[in-house]
């Protein structure tokens, strides 16, 4: 069943085109991995899907669960069941993490899970801290994931959840992401789907994603088995990898 469909998506920021002709089709139960060099447009793609007003769609449509959401504001998209963990979330002084978690939990109907999940992610001591203020790199990742778990979205977007995370915490984060994406259930019983951006692929040791995609200079250039793609990238580099993909097409 349809979860997300990107049709000929073109996106610009401040009048500069950063994504062009992006097509992607994600079905319920599937997890995609998004690879690509720095600046290739990976984060921008997720920002566009969740409706960051800075990212202007100049071409194409975004279809979510069969509905065209291209023009919907972010909160409406989130209410329809998408959620994102950001690569670099802003710091918001005076706003406590717990206040935001409560909001997430209300929407995700997980009000009774706040403590449990906070514990799972080792964030119990952060609940009354100001949002992302003074959080370390790894703490930001765990805080993002905690918010997402409580939001409990059907479509999960994770922007580099494994970057800068130590080995122990990768295991914790891996477990959380597996839960989020219902990876321990058989495909036909899952109601969730997602996209994970990763550079190192460390997260793949915990989440056996179904498909890999390479985004290169704002375009989708390769698609295939995520583990094979990762191997190709490390062997041939992005440029080499992209050339091989283009030959194959």
């Amino acid at each position, binding site marked *: 069943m349809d979860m997300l469909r990107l049709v000929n998506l073109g996106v610009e920021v401040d009048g500069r085109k950063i994504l062009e002709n992006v097509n992607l089709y994600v079905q319920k139960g599937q997890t995609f991995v998004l690879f690509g060099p720095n600046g290739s447009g990976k984060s921008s793609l997720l920002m566009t899907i969740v409706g960051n007003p*800075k990212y202007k769609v100049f071409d194409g449509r975004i279809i979510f669960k069969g509905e065209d959401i291209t023009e919907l504001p*972010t909160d409406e998209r989130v209410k329809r069941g998408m959620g994102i963990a950001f690569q670099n979330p802003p710091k918001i002084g005076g706003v406590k993490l717990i206040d935001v978690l409560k909001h997430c939990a209300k929407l995700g109907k997980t009000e009774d899970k706040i403590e449990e999940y906070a514990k799972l992610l080792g964030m119990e001591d952060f609940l009354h801290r100001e949002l992302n203020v003074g959080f370390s790199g790894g703490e930001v990742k765990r805080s993002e994931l905690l918010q997402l778990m409580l939001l409990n979205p059907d479509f999960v977007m994770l922007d580099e959840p494994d970057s800068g995370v130590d080995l122990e915490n990768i295991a914790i984060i891996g477990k959380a992401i597996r839960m989020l994406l219902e990876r321990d259930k058989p495909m036909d019983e899952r109601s969730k789907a997602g996209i994970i951006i990763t550079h190192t692929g460390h997260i793949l040791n915990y989440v056996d994603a179904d498909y890999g995609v390479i985004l290169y200079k704002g375009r989708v250039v390769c698609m295939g088995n995520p583990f094979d793609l990762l191997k190709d990238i490390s062997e041939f580099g992005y440029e080499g990898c992209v050339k091989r993909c283009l030959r194959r097409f």
Partner: protein
Amino acid sequence: MSEEILKDRLESVGIEMNPKKRSGSFLLLDQEVKNVAKFMEGLEILPIKRALEKYDWLEDYMWKAVKVKDEYTKEVEEDFNGYFIRALPNAKVEIPVEACLYLSRVKKQKVHNIVIAEEGSEINIISGCTSHPKAMGMHIGVSEFYVKKNAKLTFTMIHSWSEDIEVRPRSGVIVEENGAFISNYVLLAPAKLVQMYPTAYLKRNATAVFSSIVVAFKNATIDMGNRAILMEKGSSAEIISRTISKGGRVIARGHIVAESPEVKGHLECRGLILNEGEILAIPELEAKCPNVDLSHEAAIGKIAEEEIFYLMSRGMTQDEATATIIRGFMEIDIKGIPPALKREIDKAIELAEKELL
């Protein structure tokens, strides 16, 4: 005058007239003392004129922390009313004393208050100043605070004026050795003009903390700041302000003077302009000798789109996200403030939130 309106207005500035929640109560209506009550030992509350009759020594406290300086203080010198609040030596008055100044019919409300925290005492005062919704006029309030050795005075002032009121408080504080003065000022409702620059004089190891949360609505001019004179070794001051302009004009001042070595001061002014308005931040540091530690930070900005988007990605509407960020901006972590006073500040912020969107 309708009792309803009065009660409503008083509540908006944290005045409840509830003996269970307050250790004492004072109400000045225009130029007339309407209510004086105390519900606790170790505490003294009197109309200032009565106190002057009762205590000869009180004359020495008049115009000592505030020197007669301008046309407004002169007017108060000629004709005034007000309160005298005193915590007796070593008394711990934790439950707040409330003092309210209400302007209704007079053109000028002229007030002179004296607060004394005697040696080793602790006292919390909530002062609510407000006016009848249709009142027009001027409030001139001279307030002198004396914090004696090892004493602690927490003074929380909530202002809620109507649009045609001019307000000119004139306050001075003298903090003796090891004493602490904690001031919180909250102005979240319209006013035509507020102009004040309270000054604290700090002796050896004395501290003062001034926190202000101020909103200037359209047509308002809010010219306010705090000054601390670090007179002796070991004294320290912190001046923190959060100012929001919603169409009005704010001048956020701050001035710390180091007159002795081994003193410490920090100034922090942050401003936020919603849609339109004007904020001028003037932080001043002045050192008159070596070996002092003075610092300041000032920043004026608007609500970042990225922050709104971030909170919307957690399911908040745009309005909810904006309100959350504004509330966060006004959240000052005030050390040593009793929960009852914190609640009053939070209540005032909540009331203002709707107006700010």
